[in-house]
């Protein structure tokens, strides 16, 4: 029994990073931690993670793609909202459904704008 090596490594995202994952650059810390692990298979455990931003979800998926030849990475125990964010961003990487937004603002001079504050 002593020679059996655990094949999976579990990384608690909330302990390593935070309970809300916002920034794209923070995923670099996770990537470095994964690269230090000897195990081929790594579970990224999203228990206690309340929210993942769209940008962080995108960075997570890119990291998974970068490491896929060396590691099997699984996202586990994510809540409904986190899972949904990861699914939407993953789907958009394959088939983007987003249309560029329309933006047709009115141009206004500063005096007219500030007069409104008094209205």
């Amino acid at each position, binding site marked *: 029994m002593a020679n059996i090596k655990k094949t999976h490594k579990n990384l608690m995202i909330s302990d*390593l*990073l*935070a*309970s*809300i*994952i*916002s*920034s*794209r*650059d*923070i995923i670099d*810390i996770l990537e470095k931690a994964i690269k230090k692990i000897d195990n081929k298979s790594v579970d990224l455990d999203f228990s206690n993670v*309340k*929210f993942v*931003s*769209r*940008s*962080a979800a*995108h960075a997570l998926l890119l990291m998974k793609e970068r490491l896929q030849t060396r590691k099997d990475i699984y996202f586990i125990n994510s809540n409904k*909202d986190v899972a*949904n*964010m990861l699914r*939407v*961003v993953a789907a*958009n*990487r394959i088939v*983007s*459904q*987003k249309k*560029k*937004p*329309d*933006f*047709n*603002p*009115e*141009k*206004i*001079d*500063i005096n007219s*704008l*500030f007069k*409104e*504050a*008094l209205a």
Partner: protein
Amino acid sequence: MEKIIIPKPKNDSLVAQLESLYKTFKNIQPRENLNFDLSLLNWVCPLLILPVSAYINNTRSSCETGRSSIKSYLEKIGFPEGVDSISLFQQRVQRHKSFIPISILKKEAGASRERLEALFSEKIYEILGSVSGAQNAVCYPIAELVTNIFEHSKKDVGFIFGQFYPTKNYLDICIIDCGRGFAAAYKEEKGLKLSDVDAISEVMRGNSVKPERERGYGIWTSKRIISDVLKGGGFVLISGSAGLIARNKKERLVSFPKFYWQGVIIAYRIPKPSGPLDISQFLE
């Protein structure tokens, strides 16, 4: 050191706060050392006070409050120095329960910075109450606007502050960097020469400075969530000498003569949610 008397806003609207902000920084040279006089102020919101805090922190300028009636409020929110660690944030929140301190997010702090931002967001939606979907709706714009700072501003520090006004039943949030601003980002990353007004338009059209086509929606989607899901009472975005002011489905672009904010200021006002919130349509 030049003394700048911050003018009292004409009322509590975001545009009135913006006017005071404009007059405060009008005719200021880049990185000029200033002494801000806050003695005329009897009420401030994040859009006015956070840029002053960021400027002081960034230039080692100073301030004086005199006999201002907001002196004790400014002490409670940690003005002007702010807090840059989880322990300081928690100490202040414990001491002054309904006040969130000005928070300084430093890129180099890595996971600690992420935890400080998480604490800030958690405090915000705790104040807003346990409405279904509020966590996502509150976290999305804060997260996307802060990550923008560290990706695009070329500055390693961001400033964030929020204040809930129980008698007015709304929350104001402001997020700031003192980095290169949108126009310089487009010039340096894509070789585009744009005015500040045109650079804001590019941002709002989802045209990222990054090459991946699925990027560039952070600010635009955040604004939609603030306006349409959180029923926001206003959204202000300033970069360089230009600003976008959005309210009641109206979007206006304005140039600010003799004014230049080195970086980006984003401020918005949201009413306390009264029913469930759903941001899912804005994720597709």
